[in-house]
């Protein structure tokens, strides 16, 4: 359709009920063909009741059943819900805080802050958080999300407007969550986790859209804080539990092209229960990122001996990467209520949209695209074109290029910390193996993903950020 937008017509496969559409450069498309993710976009296009096309964002890569970077929408009243269309780490997402601290002033404190965050925030395989929640308290957290943290643990109510869905989705039926999910989740509230989760202190090194950057609070050469984590074992257990439940429901379905694409009708008891559990896990993740933010703010306040106001620490935005939510989108001439699945994709509402916080309404929702350890991250904004073409969705990151084993092998003779320090990045982690698994070469080029995202018109670039301090699980 264009050098950045490719479509496979539904006539290509008798089982397809919709077209498959990928936003990609030729190179990204070739990689997606090689790794099997195009086939996954096609498999989703075979699901009955799909509204519009089966979509993939420019960071498309192979996932479980549903590709990473995939977006699929179903009618809210008679459509389907797929746990595989959300992923295991429900509401894995990213939060960005701006500051008025110049990078030149931060450098003297960088090491102390990195160590303090590593010491304070549980990361890696240490599952126990600093917050000992009993079942009643945990229930309040998964019901209230970030709101409950602001209410009960500190933080600012003003933050809530800058979190997707206000940091809380409706949840009122604890019976839909297994005992195992409770047991895994309760000790993990306020922890970072492992794998690709991180906390980064970054410097804003380039501004592309000055008015938008100003509104987002991003100033060149100032420091920003990025937090990337999700719903930890709680979300994973919920995903596993409902894949089992949906699997039993889908047994014998000839249409199911992949066992990870099990699904249920949104209105069925199983579908309704999953959506409730999904909301609880989403609330966990928003609460988790809110708690981590408050821990980090407290560290900045202690080390700089100034309050958050003086330091200019303010939430830019918090957004989900793995979620399914009810949203209204224009289909033809009508606004239609849809359940939009985004797996490794972000919501990117356009200027003027009623759900964009008033402060940003004229420029669109911030879209945060983190890079890998040692590479740049980006802030973009939603566009009208994106709203029309992708159910207001955008890319979410780079995606792995090498397996963990390959990354460890490649970095065998390398002191990862020393190498990154030479690049101006201080790295803090209790796990040397974890660091070697996450070397920059293990990830695809985030610049290429952002270039396609912008060229295809689904988001506009606002700012580029470079890591100064990385804390990894």
């Amino acid at each position: 359709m264009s050098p950045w937008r490719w479509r496979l017509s539904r006539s290509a496969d008798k089982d397809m009920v919709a077209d498959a559409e990928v936003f990609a450069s030729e190179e990204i498309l070739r990689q997606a063909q090689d790794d099997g993710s195009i086939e996954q976009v096609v498999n989703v296009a075979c699901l009955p009741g799909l509204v519009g096309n089966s979509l993939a964002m420019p960071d498309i890569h192979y996932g479980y059943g549903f590709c990473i970077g995939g977006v699929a929408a179903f009618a809210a009243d008679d459509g389907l819900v797929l746990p595989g269309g959300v992923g295991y780490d429900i509401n894995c997402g990213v939060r960005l805080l701006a500051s008025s601290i110049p990078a030149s002033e931060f450098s003297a404190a960088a090491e102390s802050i990195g160590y303090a965050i590593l010491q304070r925030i549980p990361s890696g395989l240490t599952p126990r958080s600093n917050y000992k929640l009993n079942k009643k308290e945990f229930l309040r957290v998964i019901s209230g999300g970030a709101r409950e943290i602001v209410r009960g643990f500190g933080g600012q109510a003003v933050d809530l407007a800058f979190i997707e869905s206000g940091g809380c989705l409706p949840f009122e039926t604890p019976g839909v969550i297994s005992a195992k999910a409770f047991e895994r989740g309760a000790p993990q509230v306020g922890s970072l986790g492992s794998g690709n989760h991180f906390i980064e202190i970054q410097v804003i090194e380039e501004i592309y859209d000055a008015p938008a950057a100003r509104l987002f609070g991003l100033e060149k050469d100032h420091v920003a804080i990025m937090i990337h984590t999700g719903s930890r074992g709680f979300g994973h257990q919920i995903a596993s539990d409902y894949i089992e439940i949906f699997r039993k429901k889908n047994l014998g379905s000839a249409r199911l092209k992949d066992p990870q694409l099990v699904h249920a009708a949104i209105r069925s008891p199983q579908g309704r229960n999953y959506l409730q559990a999904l909301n609880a896990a989403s609330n966990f993740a928003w609460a988790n990122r809110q708690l981590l933010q408050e821990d980090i703010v407290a560290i900045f306040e202690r080390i700089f001996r100034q309050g958050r106001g003086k330091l200019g620490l303010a939430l830019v935005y918090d957004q989900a990467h793995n979620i399914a939510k009810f949203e209204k989108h224009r289909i033809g001439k009508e606004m239609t209520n849809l359940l939009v699945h985004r797996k490794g994709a972000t919501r990117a509402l356009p200027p003027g949209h009623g759900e964009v916080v008033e402060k940003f309404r004229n420029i669109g929702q911030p879209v945060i695209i983190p890079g890998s350890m040692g590479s740049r991250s980006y802030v973009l904004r939603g566009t009208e074109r994106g709203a029309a073409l992708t159910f207001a969705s955008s890319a979410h990151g780079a995606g792995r290029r090498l397996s963990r084993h390959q990354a460890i092998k490649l970095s065998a003779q390398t002191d990862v910390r020393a190498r990154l320090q030479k690049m101006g990045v201080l790295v803090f982690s209790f796990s040397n193996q974890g660091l070697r698994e996450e070397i920059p070469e293990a990830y695809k080029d985030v610049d290429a993903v952002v270039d396609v995202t912008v060229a295809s018109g689904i988001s506009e670039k606002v700012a580029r950020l470079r890591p100064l301090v990385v804390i990894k699980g």
Partner: protein
Amino acid sequence: MRNYEVFSTTADTGIRFKGRDFHGLYENALRGLNLLLFGSHPRRTHGDDSFHFSYSGDGPENVLVNFLAEVLFLAYQKKKQVHALDFIHADDCRLEAWLRLAPCLSVPKVDIKSVTYHNLRLVEKAGMKQAAVIFDI
């Protein structure tokens, strides 16, 4: 292919295992998971705890996913390593066994969050039942 081994995918990791019968298959699945989690399968330890596991499913893939998920739950949440299986019943749709447990002597090497059905299919080759399970980490 050995009786059990660990392999990597681009994003995650997994285990391959085989057995002449379902007893062997489930035992080697356990050995493979112990290799991934702790670097080796432990020698038999006596005098420790046990846990009764029983799962009836719709096929061997379903039983394997639920069995391995239970072993992971015991390792991460209860800090117990399953070192042996005392079978009561094992076939393609059901596994019932006493899982012999010992305290984990070390922290697991990897943070496995979920057992997936991704490309999971039991196959028979040269009289051996074989499968590969991918874990989300």
